[in-house]
């Protein structure tokens, strides 16, 4: 489907070009008026037709489609051990993945072989983590890794952390096993790259959540599904970055190798791969971070680990425990990120430091390896080195401190936070949601299609029409509209914040230098973690999910806008200044119009990020589609509805993505 949509790009851009330039100004004004007209018409009709044909569906109600999904699920469940497709394909895959996960778990997290403890105890794991971090990175990240891992033990979350690590590592391992060869292939072959790109776009566009439901259909609930969902989510960045790395090797260098008579294989092994190594390691970094984020979300389909602790705590509104586990996730994210970042820079750094150090490197590596092996042996043999000492008292301290802060905040800040929450909820969210959910479905649908066509061209309009039709078909129209309302409100907030900070950052290097590390760090965090503090502040409401979504999406938007503003040529700004523009004029008349495509891209990314988070917000009272999906995992009779809700999320995502991307293409044309 996406292939067909991508292809006629040229036709799209050629169309406005045919119209002569002077008309463009007139057209833009009229487009704005058309949008206004659509909205006014909608409002008028809404007033007349309010509450009719809204397609509401009560929480426990099911449509035929949902029942059919349930039946499919049951049939598949019954056929699982007889249908050849399952016997020889899905079950095999599940078995292999399951064995891999179980193997790694038996090494570091789960008791096995009649031992009361895993093969390698905490001391061994800490030793290995430190050693590997030092070997691929430097001693600073090694210290960080040792400290981080020890911290998990002190939090009383050793086993959960190791489960998360085991799942992440297996998913990353399998993902890279496929992703790097595919990436190299895509880097070498234009045709393969063209085939891959739409798939990768699609895989990355989809909110993480939605992989889960269909996968459970084929791979059951549990670690195997979690790993597969994770690797689907985590592989695209590695493929993309590897292909990019191969492609960005300077052509002259490849040509030089050719001119010396190297074979394709020699060029690949001696030129392309070594020269793209550094970038590929950055791709590995992205994969690991994506995997960690997904593994925590996969707790919803019963993946063991820290995510599960967070989910359970969120569901029982136990902020302290959720915070403690969330902190462990953050620490793990930081450790993994720092280590892999250091790894990508290591070769460079070692070279710069001169040869003096290189001479000692090999013996030191061997020595470190022996030390790590000794620690592993100790932790395999002695209980004190296998089981983390203490009761995880630091963890309880953190949890109770978080609880205290929450209580304090709720007691003292509730006035402010509630006022804020109510202002947004009543002023923005509720009216909008009412408009969407109380209008007849065909009115909303028509308005969406019209908006899509006006903003993104007729092709986007067609996509929107198809998506609207399918949304009606899923039977969760009303819930979709609720989610849509939250998403749009959150995106508006994201864009307001993104514009403010993005422009500020784009215009001032100092601000950029101050903000960027924070933004980078924020992007590394798995989305789950954001829910915890806002749950403490705002309680379990839709609004919590929206704020978490805003916080999750805003770093991306800020960065894209800042880069867009920065990319405006210095001379243009200088010329505007010379012409006597004041700062406000420069921003509104030069910098923002010139970074229009960045703005549209930021909106696109903002929407997608928000959508994936609003859904996770189903856990903390956001209701709607997110709740349907979560409920689907836990209650058998709601499975079909959950699956339909998952589909609805995909449809919303596709719709947003196509409209904004078409708009972005038009803006840059």
């Amino acid at each position, binding site marked *: 489907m996406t292939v067909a949509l991508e292809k006629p790009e040229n036709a799209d851009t050629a169309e406005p070009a045919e119209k002569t330039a002077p008309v463009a100004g007139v057209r833009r004004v009229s487009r704005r008026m058309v949008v206004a007209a659509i909205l006014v018409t909608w409002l008028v009709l809404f007033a007349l037709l309010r509450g009719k044909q809204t397609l509401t569906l009560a929480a426990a109600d099911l449509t035929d489609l949902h029942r059919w999904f349930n039946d499919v699920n049951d049939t598949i469940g019954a056929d699982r051990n007889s249908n050849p497709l399952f016997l020889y394909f899905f079950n095999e895959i599940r078995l292999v993945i399951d064995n891999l996960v179980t193997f790694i778990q038996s090494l570091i997290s789960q008791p096995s072989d009649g031992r009361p403890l895993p093969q390698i105890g905490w001391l061994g794991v800490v030793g290995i983590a430190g050693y590997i971090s030092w070997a691929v990175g430097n001693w600073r990240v090694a210290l960080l890794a040792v400290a981080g891992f020890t911290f998990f033990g002190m939090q009383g979350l050793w086993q959960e952390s190791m489960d998360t690590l085991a799942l992440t590592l297996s998913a990353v391992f399998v993902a890279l096993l496929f992703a790097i060869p595919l990436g190299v292939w895509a880097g070498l072959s234009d045709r393969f790259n063209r085939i891959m790109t739409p798939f990768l776009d699609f895989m990355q566009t989809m909110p993480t959540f939605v992989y889960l439901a269909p996968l459970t259909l084929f791979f059951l609930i549990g670690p195997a599904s979690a790993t597969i969902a994770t690797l689907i989510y985590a592989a695209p960045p590695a493929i993309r970055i590897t292909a990019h790395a191969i492609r960005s090797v*300077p052509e002259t*260098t490849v*040509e*030089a*190798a050719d*001119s*010396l*008579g190297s074979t394709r294989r020699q060029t690949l092994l*001696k030129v392309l791969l070594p020269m793209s190594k550094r970038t590929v390691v950055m791709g590995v970094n992205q994969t690991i971070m994506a995997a960690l984020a997904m593994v925590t979300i996969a707790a919803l389909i019963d993946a063991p680990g820290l995510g599960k602790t967070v989910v359970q705590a969120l569901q029982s509104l136990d902020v302290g425990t959720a915070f403690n586990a969330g902190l462990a996730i953050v620490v793990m994210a930081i450790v993994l990120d720092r280590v892999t970042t250091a790894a990508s820079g290591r070769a460079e750094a070692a070279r710069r430091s001169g040869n003096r150090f290189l001479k000692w490197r090999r013996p030191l590596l061997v020595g470190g390896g022996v030390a790590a092996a000794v620690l592993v042996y100790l932790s395999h043999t002695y209980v004190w080195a296998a089981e983390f000492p203490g009761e995880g008292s630091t963890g309880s301290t953190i949890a109770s401190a978080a609880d205290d802060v929450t209580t304090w905040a709720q007691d003292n800040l509730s006035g402010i936070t509630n006022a804020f929450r109510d202002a947004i909820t009543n002023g923005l969210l509720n009216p909008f949601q009412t408009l969407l959910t109380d209008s007849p479905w065909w009115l909303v649908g028509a308005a969406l299609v019209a908006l899509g066509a006006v903003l993104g061209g007729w092709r986007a309009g067609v996509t929107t029409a198809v998506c609207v039709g399918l949304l009606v078909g899923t039977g969760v129209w009303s819930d979709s509209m609720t989610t849509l309302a939250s998403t749009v409100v959150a995106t508006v907030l994201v864009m307001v914040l993104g514009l403010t900070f993005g422009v500020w950052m784009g215009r001032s290097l100092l601000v950029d230098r101050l903000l960027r590390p924070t933004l980078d760090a924020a992007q590394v965090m798995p989305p789950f973690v954001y829910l915890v503090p806002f749950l403490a502040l705002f309680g379990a409401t839709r609004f919590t999910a929206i704020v978490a979504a805003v916080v999750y999406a805003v770093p991306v938007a800020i960065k894209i806008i800042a880069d867009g503003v920065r990319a405006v040529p210095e001379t243009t700004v200088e010329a505007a200044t010379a012409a006597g523009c004041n700062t406000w004029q420069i921003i509104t008349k030069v910098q923002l119009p010139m970074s229009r495509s960045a703005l549209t891209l930021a909106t696109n990314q903002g929407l997608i990020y928000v959508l994936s988070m609003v859904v996770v917000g189903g856990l903390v009272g956001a209701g709607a589609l997110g709740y349907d999906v979560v409920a689907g995992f836990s209650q058998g009779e709601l499975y079909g509805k959950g699956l339909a809700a998952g589909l609805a999320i995909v449809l919303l995502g596709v719709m947003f993505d196509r409209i904004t991307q078409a708009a972005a293409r038009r803006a840059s044309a």
Partner: protein
Amino acid sequence: MTPAQTEVPQRRGTPQDSAPTPVISVRKLWKVFGPKADRVPDSEELCGLTRRELMDRTGCTAAVRDVNFEVSPGEVFVVMGLSGSGKSTLVRCLTRLIEPTAGEIVFEGEDIRDADDKRLRELRRRKFSMVFQHFGLLPHRRVVDNVSFGLEIRGMGKAERTKRALEVVELVGLSGYENSYPDQLSGGMQQRVGLARALAGDPDVLLFDEPFSALDPLIRRDMQNEVIRLHHEVGKTMVFITHDLSEALKLGDRILIMRDGKTVQCGTGDELVGAPADDYVREFVKDVPRGDVLTLRWIMRPVVDGDALDGPELGPDVVVREATRAVLAAEKPVKVVENGKLLGIVGDEEILAVVAGQEGDM
């Protein structure tokens, strides 16, 4: 616009006296980019179109159009043209880094276009080497490993190739930098590495694709001198691409001027300056200090009655600048004599006309 092919270049004592078999002969070479490029060289009608017309008609770009030339052993053959003239495409066609559309490239009696992949690789490994404008070095390898890369590709052992690489590194004046990485070197030194890499395999022909265009003027001059020195020392056949006329005149035994993929003129430097084939070439060579390029052959006048014929004698291939002092010092006009035969005479006016740059169109 027919190419003015002038034969018998005689400069710098190039070993050309008995017209030896050329190392490379290029005949009717075409390179057309675009859809169904093959049909262009075959169709008389399409051949006749200008570049622009061809683009509009077929969507094809003809980068090299019907180019013919021969390169003699030990010669420095320069292909000159502005950007977009097809010169870089031409040199890449020689070793099929870009696959030619039509024509022949005969190297030592063998048409390179017929070579299969294996043979082509063999030719690239042993017979040709290329130096690139943007160096094309491997940033993750030390200088010595960059230089020995071609040998490594051939499968030469480590000790042997390192030994050879060190020799070449010394030859191009990079001793002491063997263990540096390319990005620690200046542009000029990086290009020396590129040069060393090309020389390491001891090829028969060196191809240079605008090797010094990315360098500062001073460094460029150094490197040009370096190439001249190496040419004296190793005596390789060289095909040199440049857009800089002074570089072409300085290095080239013969120069081929290209425009829009076609040959405009091919000849020695003094032929280009003395007898430009058309206005394009004339415009090109306008600012060349003529005294440095032209030889007496170009400025002598026929003997008329009353000329004093007892002046000193000089050969026809003496460059004007070198003859200036002798001619001006002599009381009588200088006789231009080749193999005992009087070709003409050169007096003060002729010399001054060139040196003072007043000479009108010839």
